[in-house]
């Protein structure tokens, strides 16, 4: 009986000590899968709302803010009107900034910030190209500096380097080498958390086609 009580108590202690995080992780994991499966503006808004609800509770966690920001970037790419794209990108940056306040050294957040600037360029390349591609390059540089193994930072950086080289008609070799490294990292990099971002590999492999 004593043993049973001990086990029960232990079970409760273990359960209660894990109750918070696991509820968080469970909710996050479910929603992250939903995010990756989303295709329309409405679907993205719905998962962003969920991340917002989690972020409002878990005020010390950067992940919900990261994914909400990523969702807004996706919404921007799904939209056609320039003003609408800009609005979503503003919201994405708002989330990312809130995230970097909690975790200033997080390579994933910095890389995502660079992604926002990169999408801004596509809204109006002629006017914004110079300014925003510079900002985006800076952010990727910092993200790689913070974590040289971050495959997303390497992949995005390779993307912008490839575009620049192609525009100016210079050699794309350096960009392609970086892309290859990114693909390698996608396979080998083991994140320290089950909630860590996992997107980008498909895009990187697709981009590799251009290098062949």
């Amino acid at each position, binding site marked *: *009986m004593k043993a*049973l*009580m001990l086990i*029960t108590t232990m079970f409760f202690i273990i359960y209660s000590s894990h109750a918070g995080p696991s*509820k968080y992780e469970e*909710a996050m994991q479910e929603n992250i899968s939903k995010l990756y499966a989303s295709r329309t503006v*409405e679907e993205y*808004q*719905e998962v962003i*709302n*969920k991340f*917002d*609800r*989690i972020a*409002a*509770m878990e005020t010390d966690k950067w992940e919900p803010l990261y994914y909400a920001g990523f969702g807004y970037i996706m919404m921007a790419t799904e939209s*056609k*009107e*320039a*003003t609408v*794209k*800009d*609005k979503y990108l503003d*919201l994405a940056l708002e989330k990312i900034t809130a995230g970097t306040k909690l975790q200033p050294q997080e390579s994933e957040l910095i890389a995502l910030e660079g992604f926002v600037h990169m999408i801004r360029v596509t*809204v*109006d390349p*002629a*006017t*914004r*190209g*110079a*300014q925003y591609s*510079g900002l985006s390059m800076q952010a990727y540089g910092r993200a790689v500096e913070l974590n040289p193994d971050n495959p997303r930072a390497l992949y995005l950086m390779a993307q912008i380097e490839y575009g*620049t080289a192609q*525009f*100016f*008609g*210079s050699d794309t070799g350096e960009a392609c080498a970086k892309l290859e490294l990114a693909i390698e990292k996608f396979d080998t990099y083991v994140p320290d958390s089950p909630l860590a971002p996992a997107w980008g590999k498909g895009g990187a492999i697709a981009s590799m086609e251009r290098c062949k």
Partner: protein
Amino acid sequence: MRNIITTFILGFITMAVQGQTEITGRVTDGRGGPVIGANIFIVNSYDGTSSDAKGAFNFSTSEQGSQLLRVTCIGYETYETPVGLSAEKLNLSIPLIEKVDRLEAVVISAGSFTAGEESSREVLKPLDIVTTAGATADVAGALNTLPGTQKVGETGRLFVRGGEGSETKTFIDGIEVLNPYSSSAPNTPGRGRFSPFMFSGTSFSTGGYSAEYGQALSSALVLRSKDVPDETRTDISLMTVGADVSHTREINAGAFAGKLQYTNLTPYFEAVSQRIDWERAPQSMEGNFMLRKELTQKHELKLYSNFSWSDFVIYQPTILDESIKDKIDLTNNYQYINTSLKTIVNNQWSVLSGISYTNSIEKIKLNGEKNNEREEGVHIKTVVANDVSEKFSLLLGGEHFIRSYTYENAALPDERPGFDLDLTAFFAEADLYTSNRFVSRAGVRAEYNWMQNRFYAVPRLSVGYKTGENSQMSVAYGQFNQTGRNDLVRVKNNLEDEEADHYIINYQREENGRTFRIEAYYKNYNNLIKFTQAYNPESYTNSGEGYARGVDVFWRDNKSLKGVDYWLSYSYLDTERDYRNFPSYAVPSFASGHNFSAVFKYFINSLKTQVGGTYSYSSGRPYNNPNLDTFNSEKTADYHDLSLNASYLLKSNIIVHGSVTNVLGLDNIFGYESSDRPDENGQYVLKAVKQPASRFIFLGMFITLSKDKSVNQLPTL
């Protein structure tokens, strides 16, 4: 013991069962329509959901007792309500209030064309100014392709909606600029002194502008100086007409940039024959200096200065006898300095104070006789802006102008006509957003002119209404006043200001990279300066008057054709005046009834080249033939011009740019000048005013040196 365990287990089960409260409802906007994608949740829990396409929602929560339900959605104010959670199902109706968002809301577009880098709503981008063919990187040249302007090719200035060139005032960071155009030989176009590369934004208003801008009868051109970038680089330009070098350097909490330019048209005029007999082709030396420094987190200092020296000598045949030539030797010295301090007090309050000094000395030797003109000016201005809320903002300001003008004429050595003008002004303006769809702006401007001892108070009113997702209408009314031109006020100092009333109605539609604009206006001029004898102050009065009315249409499209961006402008103008030395109401010689421009730009990716073309048309302009009875009754032939340009990216940091104006070489006539007295047959002789050369060809190479090799002058070209 068993009981304890049972209780534990039971407790868990009941908690799980009891915890479910179902909450359903609908989220609506102010007009009962559904709000899609709103976030509905119980504060301090994960429980919540999003509203669907009908605004409906449905979720269950395990929270208990009295809780707070929050609803958030982009574009709406956050909504909160306390809810009591028990087993009972809740049904809620949630009305959201639309949030006024300045980026989303209607803007007052009547009379105004803005060009900026930030907003994707802008009609024109700074880049457009420099890539417009035929404009040869001149601000006024590019703006002349917009509706509301008249082509007056022999001056190079902006003539807006039946107004003279002097009725357009230029401001840099809100501070007035005197003499914004470089000096040029009679009937040859002058260029703007300020390079478009120096500005990040341009707001060109063709009427009905803010109470902040005074002493401009027809138009305000507001240039926003560039934030000097925090990056060290050197730019070198080699051109057929000269060379320049500029350097930008990052400093502690700021940056400075300097540019030196030397132009000399001698080699060009040697190669391409000119109609003008130049003794010494125009040459100029120009320097620009900019500084930006953050003094503290709340204070930012900006300094901008421009100095230039230019000179030329020409022989101009007299109209009556072409073999007799007047020798005109002109030297101009110009200095402009503008300093401003921006203070952000807090989220609501900001203060911008600035001071500018202009000094322009023009020395003209006409056949060896000196005619010197000097204008000096100081403008001090402070503007306080208060964003009381998203819905209401206030602008208050005060300014003082000092202007001193003297004219020295060798023929009249004892007389030195001129004037000293002091003017104090205050203005206040309020913007009220009733919703994202409706905005009204009311302003008033009060001026005291110490030279005239006269007080002026003028109202400015405008409203904007969003008629649909992408379309809007604006209406504007305003009264405007401006002290007469230097060459008139110098004869009689206490002439009153000239006055104009503007009435404007505008419709604008912007969708998917396409913009359509139509604007109708009526302008009423009064108090215009009138005289019978040019040198007799007694004959000067403010009894002149006039009107201008018309329709401006603008279409821009950068989506329909891949890589192509084009715009079309058409302006219809009907204007008459009875002013200056006019014997009666007549159409002024600068006014043409129909103006049309088509601007085309195409980026060829495979060639790394941007090509551009501009076609301009303007119907005949009136001119006076003194041999006829009726004043200004003759008309010139229509004006046509086709200009082309191309920029080629040679290397990532080298750009080659070339442009040709009037490719077809048409012999355009701007107007006619008549002899000051009749010839031996009793007839006045008329002489056509033509372009100085049929074409102008420009070639240049622009090189950028920086650590990051991919940086080039493309953003500025």
